[in-house]
């Protein structure tokens, strides 16, 4: 079978939807962050596929490399915050970490 741009776009769209579902349904903070990772990588697949198959030049690849670096930075900050949360609450369940509102 010949692999075309459409295949990549469908894969990326599927990853994106899975990521969104993950974001909406997971209660574990680490799980939620994994959902974010899925969304970012869906965008990366799009970028690289457009760059390879579409009319785009090298820019798509460069964009994807930047996004990978960005995702790493975001994970560092997010995990540090999750660590602080665990220190206070002894859990990383996002529903239980909710002591304000009142």
């Amino acid at each position, binding site marked *: 079978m010949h692999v075309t741009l459409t295949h990549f776009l469908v894969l990326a769209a599927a990853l994106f939807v899975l990521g969104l579902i993950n974001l909406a349904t997971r209660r574990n903070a680490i799980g939620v*962050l994994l959902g974010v990772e899925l969304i970012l990588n869906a965008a990366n697949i799009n970028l690289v596929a457009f760059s390879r198959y579409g009319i785009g030049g090298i820019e798509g690849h460069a*964009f994807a490399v930047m996004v990978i670096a960005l995702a790493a930075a975001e994970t560092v900050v997010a995990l540090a915050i*999750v660590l602080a949360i665990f220190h*206070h609450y002894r859990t990383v369940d*996002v529903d239980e970490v909710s*002591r304000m509102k009142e």
Partner: protein
Amino acid sequence: MLGNQASLALVIPEAILGATVAGVMALGVSRAARSRGVVAASGSLGLLAAMAVAAWQAAGAHGSVAAFHGNVVVDAMVSLFRLVFFGTGLLTLWFAYASSEIDTRDFADMTALVCASVMGMSFMAAASDLLMMVLAMEFVGLLSYVLAGLKREDQRSSEAALKYVIYGAGASGVALFGMSFLYGMAGDTSIQAVREVLLGGAGEGTRQGAGFAPLGLLAVVMVLAGLGYKVAAVPFHMWCPDVYQGAPTPITAFFSVAPKAAGFALMMRFLSLLLAGVSSRLLSDGLMVLIGVVSIASMTLGNLAALNQRSVKRLLAYSSIAHAGYLLMGVATLPALMSATPDPSGFRAVYFYLVVYLFMNLGAFFVTSHVVTRLGSDDLGAFRALGQRSPLVAGVMAVFLISLAGLPPTAGFVGKFYLFWVVLKQGGAFYYVLAFIGVLNSFLSLFYYARILKVMYLEPSADTRPVAAGPLAVAVLMALGVPTLLFGVWFSPLLSAAGKVLG
């Protein structure tokens, strides 16, 4: 279009801030950090120098310049927003200096983070390339998450940081996914190139502008979702009350103005670069209705939820959601921009309101921060009899609240009047309904602003000792309160100046 070296002179204000960040971080690990004064003074110096250079450059600049190979645009709008961001950063620093909520141990870190994030915001206002947009947005986002969680030992501060990072990372991921389609349409990360595809001018062979409109609409909606989170518009507002309540009050003041203004700056920059002159019914009507509905939802939900809050920080958080709604009314005038003769007056009203909003909202938060520092709580009860205990602070707070409610003779009235007038001027049933709901919401908001006034002036307090205000607090209150009143009575020169700057 300028190359890299030739562009450097245009970003001197940002370079000064970069140096300030490095300097403050060095101070932070040295002995000097034990004194808040040294850190606050060096941070203020950097921000003031950046503001001075930005103002000086703005005075000598003409038109817009594409810099760094078209990654950023430097124009009058960037100059205006630079002053807004840097000014907010400066005031935040002074709030924090006067507040007991920020430990001396964390003060240098906070100063460096605030200076760095206002630097990122000025790139948000200037970004004219998809990659630059993402990088600037994430830069500011990452620093904001850390700022929200600055008080590591405080449970609520950590909780605020978690809420912020989860919603923020998700929203920017969605925006990025939308941008990947915009890139695919044009094969170029420049927003201008994407616009040419939508115009139908560029592209080889069968590429048609109109054929791209549905995909373009989907992609733009995704990007707007990411920005909607930044400005805290419904339905991306859920993080906002928790983050505002949990973060230290000076940081909350910063969040309520600077990232919101930056989100609006980026949104309007993106929309005007992408859609100016693009005559697609699907895009213009689709986006008008979408932004309009989000605007109505934001102001209505924000105002209704604010009605029965006890925590003043939380109340102001909902009020800021409602204000995002009012501001989005101006962005909903997008079709005027997409016509053959682009008319940016709606966007101009948003710029104007953002400047006014800076003064009144920072002011209200500063008074809250003052009360938290002196009385230990941001509960409405802590404001009891403030009118007798500290007449000056209560009086200025009254000005800020009246201005937030949009009543004369304050700047808030002028800003809101201008915004409603521009929306009505567009004509058409949709805009009339939008403006009508906006006015109804302004009345609704009176209830909770008046409630704070009532608590301050009419409710007795068991504790009648006066609440002291130091010279710094009085100076900051005057710096924010006097313009709020002055703009309200002396608005025509200001409006014409704004028109001239952005004309």
